C-alpha cells in the first residue's frame, strides 16, 4: 500500500506533503516515514495517510467575473481623490 507522508518542519508551520512510502500496514508506514522523513530531526511531526484516503480536487470554475470578493475588485484611487477635493483636503501626493 502507498502511504502519503506530510511533514511539519517546525512548530506552527503548516504540514506539507513530503513524499510517499510503500508499506503493508499503518504501523510499518509510520516506522518507515519516521526514518525517511525524520532521521535528522528535520521534522517535528508527520502525518501518514493511506493514499486511497486522499481525494484530489483539480478543477475550478471561474466564468463570470467574480472580482466582488477579491481585493482586485476594488479600485478606490479616483473616488478618494474626488472626495478629498470636495472636502478641500486634497494635497499634492
Amino acid at each position: 500500500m502507498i502511504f502519503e507522508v506530510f511533514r511539519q518542519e517546525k512548530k506552527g508551520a503548516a504540514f506539507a506533503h513530503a513524499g510517499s512510502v510503500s508499506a503493508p500496514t499503518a504501523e510499518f508506514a509510520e516506522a518507515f516515514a519516521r526514518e525517511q522523513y525524520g532521521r535528522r530531526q528535520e521534522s517535528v511531526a508527520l502525518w501518514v495517510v493511506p493514499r486511497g484516503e486522499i481525494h484530489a480536487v483539480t478543477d475550478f470554475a471561474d466564468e463570470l467575473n467574480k472580482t466582488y470578493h477579491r481585493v482586485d475588485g476594488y479600485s478606490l484611487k479616483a473616488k478618494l481623490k474626488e472626495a478629498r477635493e470636495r472636502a478641500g483636503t486634497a494635497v499634492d501626493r
Partner: protein
Amino acid sequence: MNAQELLSIADDELILGWRDSEWTGIAPSLEEDVAFSSIAQNEIGHARALYELAAAALGTTADELAFDRDPSDYRSSQLVEQRRMDWAHTIARHYLYETADEIRLAALKESDDAAVAGLAAKMDREEQYHRLHARMWAERLKDEPRFKEALEELWPYALGVLAPEQRAALAERVGLPETQAVERDGHSDELGELWEEMTMVRRSIPGATW
C-alpha cells in the same frame, strides 16, 4: 560498574551494529533498508559512548578500544557474532537482543555510577524505537516457520547476552523456557573473520589518523 563490564555491552553493540550494517543496500525493501540502517547506526553510536566511558577509566580512546584489541580480548556475546545473512535470523536476533537489552538497560539505569546511569537512560530512549521495530516484525513473522526455527536456534545464545540472574525475566518476556545458555566467554571463528575485515584499513598504517 567496572570497565570490563562496560566493554561487554560496548562490544555487543559494536559487533551487532557491524552485523546489522551488512544489510545496507540489500534489505528486503528499500524502506526497511533505511529504517534498519538507522538501527545499525544507533548501535554503533551506543558502542562509541560506552567505549568513551571505559576509555576515560582505562586511559585510552574509544577507537583504540573498538579496533585495536586482539579478537580474543573482545567481550561480545556469541549471539551478536554470528553471521546470519538471511532475514529470518536477522529479525529473530534483533528481537531477542532488543528484549534482552531492555532488561540489561533497566538495571544499568539504576547504577550507582551517575555517568553510566545517565548514558543508559539516553540509550534506552533510542532503543524504544528499536523495540517497536523488532516487535512489529516479530508479530508479522510469528507464524512463519523460518522465523520460529530461527528463534529457537538463537534462544540459547540470547540467554548468554544477560547475567544469569536476568535470564528468567527474558524467558518470561519471550515466552520460551529458560535453558542452557551459550555463554559470553567463548568466541567462534566468525568473530576473528569479522575482526580481520573490520580492522584491515586501520591496521594497514598503524597509528595513522583517518
